């Protein structure tokens, strides 16, 4: 028998199907009554909190299910619905079925669907969600012919927010194996699932077996025809929640969303339970918690705080905290959060913002400058590797042989960042700087970049090395930076707690120097111009070739 979580029981409307729950209906009723009286005894504010437990309305497909159910109910109407009857065949009677063609024709008539495939598609969707099913097949599709179908009982409708567990499935499969073999053997995938579940639940298999036995005993007592109907409905239920491989699974949800919904449910439930327990302990009529209106953020922070504090108290639950302190904490947290937000906004107000028009211009110029390098806009120098079946594109980029393509060398003139990003660019720049005897700036900059990527334990020793190399009194490669940054860096390094960002200010200063001074001279230098021309000369032949192949490619793509 499939069971529902106790929390959801409190929310269920009486959607009783046929008397399936004879074994546990009495227990259910008692539970429900207990819960009801318990709820009624609680103060209204707690009741309000309990109502924050998500009701069926919040399940993702609720509206869709309601629409489908409206159609189904019309279909089940005695006079104007789909004709359901008991069919006699060979030696048995098939109770309460209707044919596929009946269903499809009813749909096109009553919903005034014009195209023939529309009603078939709609019927198929109703089946896929589990509202009707073919009586002899596991695959939930509908065919427009004389095959027989049956309606699913409202107990099993998906709008009841079923989330059946693997244990329930195991009990069901076990029960199936106990039934008369001739009639209902397990399909291959069901046998596999059963084997898998047996392994999973090997420790409590006895318990599962007992439950299956109990259920099959109850079933045996039923009337044969009724039993057929109920069996087929239960089978259809499991076809929806544990579909046959190859069939659509309509109960799937993105796991990230699912985990979030579950987390929220769990939190709310815990909160509610805590409240109930506190209420029972303290018997304090004045409950000043009004969490029902608070933001998600506050609730989550509250729960986190509660968890943290309860962990600190060696596992004691938060019940031992008096309620008033809890309330104060909530307000405190809100104040803290508000203060944080305030400081961020204040910082924002102090910033100067650039106008959108200027920003747009910047984007336009960036796009135009780089459109040459965007493979989606301009074909790159080397042929597309998947079309031409060579890996030239990647191999050539890695190599730094002399005749570098013109595009690549030109890119170095876009900004210092581009120059430093490309390894051959760095080398060329280093050569230029060594000619000018100002190579230490670049070396320092590269050393600090390396420092930032080091693991923690080597940071402080390396920082000291860098200091000795570039800033100390008799440094081999002295770097010129202003006195303020120098002092700052010195205190940081010599304090012994050098972190990887201690040279940042100095590095920024050096970067600025390089950008304004050395870089601009580099771009105007003979070296760079020669390099450009050199690559131009050497790639001019390549350039022609690439134009030829470019048009060649155009022709093939036009075919």
């Amino acid at each position, binding site marked *: 028998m499939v069971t529902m979580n106790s929390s959801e029981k409190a929310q269920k409307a009486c959607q009783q199907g046929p008397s399936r729950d004879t074994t546990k209906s009495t227990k259910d009723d008692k539970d429900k009554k207990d819960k009801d009286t318990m709820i009624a005894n609680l103060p209204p504010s707690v009741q309000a909190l309990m109502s924050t437990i998500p009701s069926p309305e919040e399940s993702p497909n609720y509206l869709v299910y309601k629409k489908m159910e409206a159609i189904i109910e019309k279909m089940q109407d005695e006079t104007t619905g789909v004709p359901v009857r008991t069919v006699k065949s060979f030696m048995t009677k098939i109770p309460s079925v209707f044919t596929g063609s009946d269903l499809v024709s009813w749909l096109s008539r009553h919903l005034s669907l014009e195209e023939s495939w529309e009603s078939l598609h709609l019927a198929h969707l109703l089946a896929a969600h589990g509202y009707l099913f073919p009586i002899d097949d596991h695959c939930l599709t509908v065919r427009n012919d004389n095959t027989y179908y049956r309606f699913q009982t409202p107990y099993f409708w998906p709008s009841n927010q079923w989330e059946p567990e693997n244990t329930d499935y195991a009990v069901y499969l076990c029960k199936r194996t106990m039934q008369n073999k001739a009639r209902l053997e397990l399909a291959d995938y069901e046998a596999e699932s059963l084997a898998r579940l047996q392994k999973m639940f090997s420790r409590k298999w006895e318990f599962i077996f007992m439950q299956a036995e109990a259920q099959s005993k109850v079933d045996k007592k039923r009337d044969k025809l009724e039993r057929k109907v109920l069996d087929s409905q239960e089978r259809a239920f499991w076809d929806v929640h544990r579909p046959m491989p190859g069939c659509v699974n309509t109960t799937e949800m993105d*796991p990230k969303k699912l985990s979030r919904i579950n987390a929220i449910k769990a939190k709310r439930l815990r909160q509610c339970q805590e409240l109930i327990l506190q209420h029972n302990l303290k018997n304090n009529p004045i409950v000043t918690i009004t969490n029902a209106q608070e933001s998600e953020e506050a609730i989550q922070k509250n729960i986190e705080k509660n968890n943290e504090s309860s962990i600190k108290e060696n596992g004691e639950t938060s019940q031992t905290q008096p309620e008033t302190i809890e309330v104060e904490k909530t307000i405190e947290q809100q104040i803290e959060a*508000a203060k944080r937000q305030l400081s*961020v906004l204040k*910082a924002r107000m102090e910033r100067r913002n*650039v106008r959108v028009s200027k920003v*747009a211009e910047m984007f336009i110029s960036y796009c135009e400058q*780089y459109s040459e390098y*965007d493979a989606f*806009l301009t074909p790159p120098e080397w042929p597309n590797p*998947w079309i031409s079946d060579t890996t030239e594109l990647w191999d050539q980029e890695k190599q730094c042989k002399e005749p570098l393509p013109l595009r690549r060398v030109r890119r170095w003139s876009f900004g210092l960042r581009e120059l430093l990003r490309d390894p051959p660019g760095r080398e060329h720049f280093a050569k230029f700087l060594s000619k000018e005897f100002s190579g230490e700036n670049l070396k320092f900059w590269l050393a600090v970049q390396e420092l930032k990527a080091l693991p923690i334990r080597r940071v402080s020793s390396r920082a000291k090395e860098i200091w000795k190399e570039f800033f100390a009194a008799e440094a081999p490669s002295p770097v010129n930076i202003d006195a303020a940054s120098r002092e700052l860096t010195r205190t940081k390094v010599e304090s012994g707690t050098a972190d990887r960002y201690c040279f940042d200010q100095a590095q920024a200063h050096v970067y600025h120097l390089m950008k304004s001074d050395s870089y601009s001279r580099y771009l105007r230098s003979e070296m760079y111009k020669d390099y450009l021309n050199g690559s131009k000369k050497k790639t001019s032949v390549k350039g022609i070739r690439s134009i030829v192949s470019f048009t060649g490619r155009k022709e093939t793509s036009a075919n």
Partner: protein
Amino acid sequence: MPKDDPETAALKKELNDIIAKAKAEQEKVADAKLAEKCGDMADVPKIRLITKKTLKGHINKVNSVHYSGDSRHCVTGSLDGKLIIWDTWSGNKVQVIPLRSAWVMSVAFAPSGNFVACGGMDNMCTVYDVNNRDATGSAKMVRELAGYEGFLSSCRFLDDTHILTGSGDMKICVWDLEVGKREVEFDAHAGDVVTISLAPDMKTYVTGSVDKTCKLWDVRAEKEKQTFFGHEADVNSVCYHPSGQAFATASEDKTARLFDIRSDQQLGHYTPPGASGFTSCGLSVSGRYLLAGSDDNTVHSWDTLKVAHTGTLNGHENRVTSISLAPSGIALASCSWDQGVRVWG
């Protein structure tokens, strides 16, 4: 709300005032619309990417894909519990790494190509060394970073020794991989941190979260530099503009947007012809094309400047969960619930 004591009341008033002022500032700066300004630019051609390679091998939904720094290899993680490193040119599987937990939500490739990281519902981030194998012949597990209170939703390598992660417990952590210890950990958002994107200069990064905001962070600091509002539902993915001055976002509210950092506001608003949520986004090298993978089994593309839809890439048979652009811009990899990974070029 409980009775406001004067302090709370004063704070609230101050907060509301400053929010109003910030909004007013934003409007002052918004003196032009992006599409109008770029009105006289040449129209960009409709995107002509076709599937160059279909990478077959996963036997369950593929959740995440990330390109390596060499623009040739990519790693994909799937719910069948495997990480596969592909050579996108030949379609060969360079390595298949079996995972301890099948619920992988996010993968990352180090730019150097030496490490891959993955994580998901196991609340851990696991880092593997691509170049070394262990006793069983699969890639050596270098680190198992545990201690999250929520699932690992995104991770990105800062370099070979540092990894930045965002998780379902709303925190961001930076780990030192040599020691396996957390360097920094702080509360970042009011909801799960779902996505991270590093700036080209690696000094800053942007995160997106289910609390509908995106925040800009400095790698060195624990407080955010800027917050961007505008989305109406979860932000599923963010991607930096190659200039480092803006970023694109894709969200569950069926839009993709372009936010600019310097003017601190939303510049572009991109909607598809149909209506389905977006799961991931990417920008091309020049920043002209914005591509976003969507729930309707296609990848949509827009001209970012003219705010116009330039086409869709069809081919997947189920929702596209993640896309990744090669750093050199030569290709785009997309993965989907139909168990396939496609390389578009």
